[in-house]
């Protein structure tokens, strides 16, 4: 079923989506309507236009594909499912995400993948094709963030304060040199064969959606950011 969003209020649009019996729903002419597919499971939702903030919040097993750019807080507290963005996304993408995958063809705003966490079989994955804004993976507790730096010419595809307060998970950056000025909670190393093997399925998913050769991409140079176990918060306090 196709629902034309145009200037419909988000509450009306989301009611229409929830009420629609189809497993496959297309939202056309989206104009900033918020919370599309929030908490939803078992559907496939295609969005044309510009979905509003908190797209796929608490997502629980849906697939959302956006032809256009996504705004802020995409996949907020997402539990499972997949969000595919043929474009870029705004700030705080994948905040507190626990599972599922977000594929962003282009760039990601500030605070991408902030406080992502893994749990049992769930491993949240955020793949950013272009570059990411400051504070990527702040407080990262688990999961995998991949930044491919397409169009950045081999420079680190991240900005300031990448991985601040990181205490779990992994950030992988495709670049020719390690990023400078990383916080002390972060260790940097070149990608190992095991890292590349971990990347591969996500690179394949990325290339399947947006084009490119996953094998060739996996063979390129990557730097891996992991938390430094020596730099936790234990030393911060004294009992009073």
């Amino acid at each position, binding site marked *: 079923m196709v629902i034309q969003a145009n200037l419909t209020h988000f509450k009306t649009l989301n009611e229409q989506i929830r009420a629609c019996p189809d497993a496959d729903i297309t939202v056309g002419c989206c104009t900033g309507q918020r919370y599309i597919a929030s908490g939803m499971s078992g559907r496939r939702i295609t969005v044309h236009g510009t979905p509003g903030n908190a797209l796929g919040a608490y997502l629980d097993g849906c697939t959302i594909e956006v032809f256009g750019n996504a705004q802020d807080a995409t996949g907020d507290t997402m539990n499972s499912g997949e969000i595919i963005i043929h474009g870029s996304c705004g700030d705080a993408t994948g905040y507190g995400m626990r599972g599922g995958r977000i594929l962003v063809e282009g760039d990601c*705003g500030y605070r991408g993948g902030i406080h992502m966490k893994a749990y049992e079989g769930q491993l949240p994955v955020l793949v950013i094709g272009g570059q990411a804004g400051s504070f990527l993976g702040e407080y990262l507790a688990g999961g995998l963030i991949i930044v491919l730096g397409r169009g950045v010419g081999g420079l680190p595809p991240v900005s300031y304060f990448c991985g601040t307060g990181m205490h779990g998970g992994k950030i992988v950056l495709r670049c020719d040199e390690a990023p400078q000025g990383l916080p002390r909670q972060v260790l940097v190393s070149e990608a190992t064969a095991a890292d590349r093997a971990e990347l591969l399925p996500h690179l394949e998913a990325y290339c399947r959606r947006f084009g490119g050769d996953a094998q060739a991409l996996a063979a390129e140079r990557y730097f891996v950011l992991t938390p430094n176990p020596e730099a936790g918060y234990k030393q911060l306090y004294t009992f009073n």
Partner: protein
Amino acid sequence: MLKEGQVRIPAGCAISGIFSRSGARTSGEAIIKSISTMHDRSNGLGGGFAGYGIYPEYADFYAFHVFYDTQAARDACEDFLEAHFDIVNLSKIPTRRHPRITDEPMIWRYFVNPLHVKLEASQLDEREYVARCVIRVNDQLEGAYIFSSGKNMGVFKASGYPEDVGAYYRLEEYSAYSWTCHGRYPTNTPGWWGGAHPFALLDWSVVHNGEISSYDANRRFIEMFGYKCNLLTDTEAITYIIDYLGRRQGLTLPEIAQVIAAPFWSTIESRPAEERARLTYLRNAFAPLLVTGPFSILVGFDGGLMALNDRLKLRSMVVGEKGDTVYIASEECAIRVIEPSLDRIWAPRGGEPVIVTLDKGGK
């Protein structure tokens, strides 16, 4: 119940701007459509617009837009204006009745120039003279408030949702090469119209989203230089800071941005020596004007527009381009709704200003 100016009222918001580099003037309809898509970022307690290039027939006169609570306030203000300015035209600002715009004050417009003799006697630069007169009215004349005082530009604002405010002021009848707009989400009463954005002084106008945490440090510093922060709003303080740094200290807009959204020391230290020295100097010399906390602002001025995010980029802002027109808004949908096929769209980094000006020969 205390009104704005007697108590400080934090507010959140939506902003939008349209700027034509070629100087092509368009009506207010597009900007109204743009802001209306972000309805949920406002709460109906304030909306407003600034348009540049709207008064070509009076381009050499300061256009004062004034709210009056009472006839007595109007009489007092007009006495003051007559004593200090040559008033070449005065009229009510045209409005249309609107079911959701209520409690309107009297809204008047004056095109003026300083009285030559008074200006000479004051020994002030003309713009300083005008600024002081505006501040004096707003500070001292109870019930009168000059909310717009630039040349060939004007601010239109009220308590209400911005799309309703635009309709109320009949903005479809004005043409501007630069429009900015604001939908307000204050944490207060449907109080006073003066508290809405844009806030303006001379040809500066500022719309702002966010609540700054440095407010009183900034205010107490800026008030040393003759400004009076009557509204206790962030926007008012930011406008005065920009006026002080730009008009009185002669800083360029990028330099102003480097003062109010100064990079972190760790970032400054990573820059080449010369730039590091300059950034260190600016941050140190104007330390009390560092603005912290979330903000995204649009600063309108004669012939240009600046967009700036706080250095942590705590508010969202996107910029789009199509031909020679530049669009800036809190959310991408507010741009797409008026221009679906953009040449380029991007989110500027925190603390890095986007400055657009008229092409040569534009206007």
